[in-house]
């Protein structure tokens, strides 16, 4: 089983993360300094090379997003 994490690149604004941070502050969680979001896909049945290909071709738009592949 592979875990694929897709998230915005460091320099690209993550509006969902920013809004979550704002919400946390409003709820009194002043400790929160930064929130980033990611989307996770679990994929079974492919080898690592195929998962790489899936990420580059489909799951991530590498102009705005980075991806990580973890073996579970």
């Amino acid at each position, binding site marked *: 089983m592979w875990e694929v994490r897709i998230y*915005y*690149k460091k*320099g*690209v*604004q*993550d*509006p*969902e993360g*920013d*809004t979550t941070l704002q919400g946390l502050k409003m709820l009194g969680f002043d400790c929160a300094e930064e929130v980033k979001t990611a*989307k996770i896909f679990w994929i079974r049945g492919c080898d690592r090379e195929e998962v790489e290909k899936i990420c580059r*071709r*489909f*799951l991530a*738009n*590498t*102009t*705005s*997003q980075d991806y990580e592949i973890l073996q579970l």
Partner: protein
Amino acid sequence: MADRGETLRLEDVKVLIIRAPGTNCDAETKDAVFDMGARADVVHLNRIIKGNISLEDYHGIILPGGFSFGDMVRSGVILGKLLRYNLKKEFDEFIAEGNPVLGICNGFQALIEADFLPGLDISLALGKNISARFEDRWCHIKRYRGGLFTRSVGELVKIPVANGEGRLILPEGKEEKIYEELGENRQIAFKYATGEGKPAMGSYPENPSGSYGDIAGLTNNAGNVMGMMPHPERAFYRYMYPDWTRDYGKPEGYGDGYYIFKDMLDYIVKKL
């Protein structure tokens, strides 16, 4: 083969409207083309991939708005990749022949994901709106230089947007260079503006998505492929405007979006 003779009349023009599961602006888009006197066929993507329908039989293609494949993964990505990996050759030929392709909202997202726009081996992205909201509002866009789709379009266009992922993102670190390149190539069709026609300068809600450089619509280098986030089919008639009783008087007549379809069809008739 579609008739590409010099005597092509508007009623002979055939426009292909490609739908996928979740597309929901195909009917209005078809009505817009039909209102102008041309024929439009709404065809499911699978019929084209299976070869039941050929792009060659049409004079123009429109990818309408909606939520293809439920906007899963990213808006327009599944449709875009299906086009890229199944129909790239057919699309490349269709575009190289100078035929017009228009992507509206989700259609624009698909053209970006398919890398049919902006061309030049540049890949762009449409990310979540800075507001983190689905932006469903009327806005103003200013016409820049947009090839065949914007010849008779007014300089300032009032038109609605309806998207959650309309923020154009340019490759990191190369933003200014690519932005300049797109400008020099006359590929920026529309930019968000204020009601007075001044640049939105990234301000909200004038630039509703936070799109880079206020870009609302792009074309390819040749100008015959255009993608735009706002919906011209929803500004087709004057009575579609929320304030038509104040600003536009009588309900009959056309809105600003009409001219984008008109320019597309005029181009087909005059070019062929």
